[in-house]
């Protein structure tokens, strides 16, 4: 038995799924364990699967299965394989980066004959942990096990024999052992094939040992047996398979005939009740219900007759003749080639890859952001989202860890998004400081997830903002290099919001420690670095930080709206877009409006964004939200200002930018000022404050004007100056757009971050980033 670096044969059984199959083949290029071949068994397919496979030449073994029968197809793959281990994965799934490496580690134990890992359903609309561990009985009863087999130490069914099982899309066997038990029973054309094998494998005294690692990411696709995410599937095939399984395995396990028959009747009856329920819930039509009922009974009886009266259809123990292509078995064609390592990352949902050519292997990066769109639209979340998207478009693999109400995984906008619930299991001693208690626990939960991602996905670096010190525990553990994107410090925000509690004080302290202990700092501007030096007294050496500016995806030229000097419309529109809170300078803008209107009476103001008066203390102090404050303080200007509330991302925001003539954001502090870039994207001049990183983004007098913070008078003058000059409106807008294209695109950002990450990884663990 070869236990040193076993060779794997990955067997894929496919029918009519060329697109997901191509995605899987792309993903396999990225496996960390290179010693594997790919065996593809194609059923009676009607799409372009064969044309697709022609492109792969002899990199893959391609076989045909004459029927749409999974058992037959799996056996054909098994017999044509030449690896020590056969690993089965569905054509609509992709493996984690270290899938085979993890499985190989398990097979290092020579007594283990089979294993498999967990399965995540990663479709954005249906994310869940599909399979962790499982138990299966000789009477076709199944129990899902979420965390430990000990949950069901006495399984709740009626059978006397229970075995562990894997899911068909993530299971691996020693080839010799699988052939020894006759491979798959070819009666199973769909479902129960993997559980039946698990039962026979165990009865034969072999060790089947699933684990809670080595995940496969599943994106279920429709097939001839089911329409995915609907109730339109051939339930009766399940009935037939389960009844047959109960008869065969029940008999082999010594169950009495009467028990087996009773169980079979229960299975058929249960499916009949299911059809009634589906009909009652309007999930299927009346016609479908009748079809289901008739098929349930006939299929169930068919399964019983086959089970009781006919022998199993297995492959002979010597490997068999039928379908055993000895020439294929003899050859082992390693799938990966010299180009595999340089392939860009693949979107597992639609198979898309970035349109780039890489000169170095892509990185595997993990971004931390407790807030992440679409559920949260805070600044850090949006930056992280943009960064993730840009990194994917530059070919890298990106994982994001964010908060969620339960554990799940999706793939969105170029990133694997791992949602983790914040479990308050640690640091009880900080319960009296609720903010600290929560943030420390979240940071620890993040660290737990990071360890999983190292094991399964081979992440190489952690990128976290300093905000709420999410990566603190990971950083202290030293498990991976942690870089910190510096954003507005908590110690800056707390006084602005009037919060001087002990809880906030300690949070600020932890932010300082987090920054001090980072492997590398990524301030988005020089100003951010200077500010943090002032606040926290952190003075990094030149090789300990890099300026890493953000960037956005430029809109096409036809979507920009520079000011038209020929236009007949005389009314002008000024846009404010951001949270309505003191820090964003909303009060200063309110106080500037009367003066602006005096100079430019045909001006309208659009105030867009969520009111944050309940969080920044304004409501508490004044008893009013911001809109009420404006309307009471300046009632005569009420008709000139539109409060439109929070505006969703995408088209609604785009319309706001396009329709305005001038963008204003008089924030008291911005570490960078992404909002200005977003306005510049549409060729709009901008007015901001000469604070933080804003002057590094907005070129005063060229792309807009900057004034001192908290100076409503100067703000009004600046707005009026630009509004009253059509040439300035046009030229500053055009210059802003040009500045964006030259310095602040997503591609600039991705290239810069990737270069920095690569240097840090090389510096910290030179040989470890393959």
């Amino acid at each position, binding site marked *: 038995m070869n236990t040193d670096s076993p060779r794997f044969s990955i067997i894929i059984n496919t029918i009519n799924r060329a697109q997901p199959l191509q995605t899987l083949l792309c993903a396999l290029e990225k496996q960390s364990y290179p010693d594997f071949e790919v065996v593809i068994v194609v059923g009676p397919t009607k799409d372009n699967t064969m044309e697709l496979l022609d492109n792969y030449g002899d990199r893959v073994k391609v076989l045909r299965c004459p029927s749409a029968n999974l058992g037959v197809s799996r056996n054909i793959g098994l017999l044509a394989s030449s690896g020590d281990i056969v690993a089965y994965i569905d054509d609509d799934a992709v493996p984690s980066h270290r899938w085979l490496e993890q499985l190989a580690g398990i097979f290092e*134990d020579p*007594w283990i004959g089979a294993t498999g890992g967990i399965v995540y359903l990663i479709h954005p609309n249906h994310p869940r942990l599909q399979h962790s561990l499982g138990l299966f009985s000789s009477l076709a009863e199944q129990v899902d096990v979420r965390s430990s*087999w000990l949950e069901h*130490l006495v399984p709740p069914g009626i059978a006397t024999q229970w075995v562990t099982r894997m899911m068909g899309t993530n299971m691996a066997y020693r080839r010799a052992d699988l052939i020894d038990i006759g491979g798959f029973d070819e009666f199973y054309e769909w479902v129960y094939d993997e559980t039946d094998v698990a039962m026979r494998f165990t009865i034969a005294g072999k060790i089947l040992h699933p*684990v809670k690692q080595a995940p496969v990411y599943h994106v279920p696709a429709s097939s001839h047996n089911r329409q995915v995410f609907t109730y339109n599937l051939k339930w009766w095939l399940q009935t037939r398979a389960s009844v047959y399984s109960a008869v065969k395995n029940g008999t082999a396990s010594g169950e009495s005939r009467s028990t087996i028959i009773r169980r079979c009747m229960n299975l058929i009856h249960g499916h009949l009740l299911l059809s009634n329920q589906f009909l009652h819930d309007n999930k299927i039509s009346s016609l479908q219900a009748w079809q289901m009922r008739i098929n349930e009974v006939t299929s169930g009886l068919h399964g019983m007759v086959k089970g009781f009266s006919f022998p199993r259809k297995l492959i002979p123990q010597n490997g068999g003749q039928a379908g055993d292509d000895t020439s294929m078995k003899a050859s082992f064609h390693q799938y990966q080639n010299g180009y595999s390592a340089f392939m860009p990352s693949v979107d597992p949902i639609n198979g898309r890859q970035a349109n780039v050519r890489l000169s170095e292997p892509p990185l595997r990066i993990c971004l931390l952001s407790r807030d992440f769109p679409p559920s949260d639209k805070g600044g850090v979340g949006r930056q992280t989202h943009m960064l993730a998207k840009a990194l994917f478009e530059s070919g890298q693999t990106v994982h994001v860890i964010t908060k969620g109400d339960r554990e799940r995984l999706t793939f969105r906008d170029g990133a694997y998004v791992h949602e983790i619930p914040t479990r308050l299991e640690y640091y009880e001693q900080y319960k009296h400081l609720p903010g600290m208690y929560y943030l420390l626990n979240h940071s620890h939960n993040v*660290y737990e997830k990071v360890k999983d991602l190292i094991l399964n996905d081979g992440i190489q670096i952690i990128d976290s903002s300093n905000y709420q010190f999410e990566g603190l*525990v990971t950083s202290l553990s030293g498990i991976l290099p942690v870089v910190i994107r510096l954003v507005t410090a908590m110690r800056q925000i707390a006084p602005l919001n009037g919060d001087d509690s002990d809880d906030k004080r300690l949070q600020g302290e*932890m932010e300082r*420690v987090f920054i001090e202990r980072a492997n590398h700092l990524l301030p988005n501007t020089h100003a951010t670095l200077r500010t943090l030096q002032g606040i926290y007294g952190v003075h990094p050496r030149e090789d300990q930080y890099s300026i890493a500016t953000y960037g956005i995806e430029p809109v096409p030229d036809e979507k920009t709206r520079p000011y038209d000097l020929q236009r007949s419309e005389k009314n002008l529109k000024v846009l404010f877009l951001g949270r309505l809170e003191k820090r964003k300078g909303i009060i200063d803008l309110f106080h500037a409006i009367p003066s602006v209107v005096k100079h430019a009476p045909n001006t309208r103001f659009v105030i867009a964004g969520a009111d944050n008066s309940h969080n920044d203390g304004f409501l508490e102090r004044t008893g009013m939200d911001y809109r009420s404050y404006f309307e009471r303080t300046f009632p005569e200007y009420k008709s000139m200002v539109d409060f439109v509330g929070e505006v969703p991302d995408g088209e609604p925001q785009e319309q706001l930018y396009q329709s305005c003539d001038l963008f204003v954001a008089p924030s008291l502090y911005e570490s960078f000022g992404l909002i200005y870039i977003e306005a510049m994207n549409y060729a709009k001049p901008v007015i901001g404050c000469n604070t933080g990183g804003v002057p590094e983004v907005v070129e005063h007098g060229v792309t807009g004007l900057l004034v001192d913070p908290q100076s409503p008078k100067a703000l009004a003058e600046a707005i009026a100056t630009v509004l009253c000059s059509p040439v300035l409106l046009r030229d500053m807008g055009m210059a802003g757009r040009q500045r964006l294209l030259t310095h602040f695109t997503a591609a600039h950002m991705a290239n810069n971050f990737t270069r920095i990450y690569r240097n840090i990884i090389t510096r910290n663990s030179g040989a470890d980033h393959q």
Partner: protein
Amino acid sequence: MKRKLSAEDVIKDIEFELAQGVPPKDNLGESIEAVRQFQNKLRAELDISNTGSPSRQSIGRLLQLNDMLVTLLQETAVAITQLQLTQQLQIRHAHASTRALLDQIDTDAIRISEHIAKIDEVTKSKSLFVAIDPQRSAIPIIGRWISKLRQALHGLPLYYVRILASKQTVVNQAFSEEYGYTLNEITELRQRVNDLELRITHPESTD
């Protein structure tokens, strides 16, 4: 006056949490296979398809008990496998804090003792005891002889149950020996992991 909490206090607490991981250990494959093979051999040897037999219930329960024991062993093996994976990583990331990596072990899954107690309880429970309790005959005169005959007939399956019980004892002994062996192995491996960690984090002290 009570001292205010500082960042250093919090760091100490975090480092304490990071140091909590406890590694268990090792290769259970052989023992699991031995128990399973014996179990399956027993299934094949004993006719348990006769539902009318009073011994069937007992045999079924005994076999179920064995399945539980094997499951328990296998659960331990899961934790051990995770340890093996962690160790590989530990070596790859020798520069990093090894103690933190050891946390990979799912310590919740190793709360074995309470489950051992559970199995013990099932083993000792009266559910495995099959009493001879034939129905008494109410027929006058010959009823007493009929009752004696019934008693004798019920004694026959009991004879086989006793044989089974003696075989089951062998299974239980094998299990207990293997488990004891495993626990020893776990302790040894834990020591080896600690040594390894020491060598990685303080190479100078072991040179």
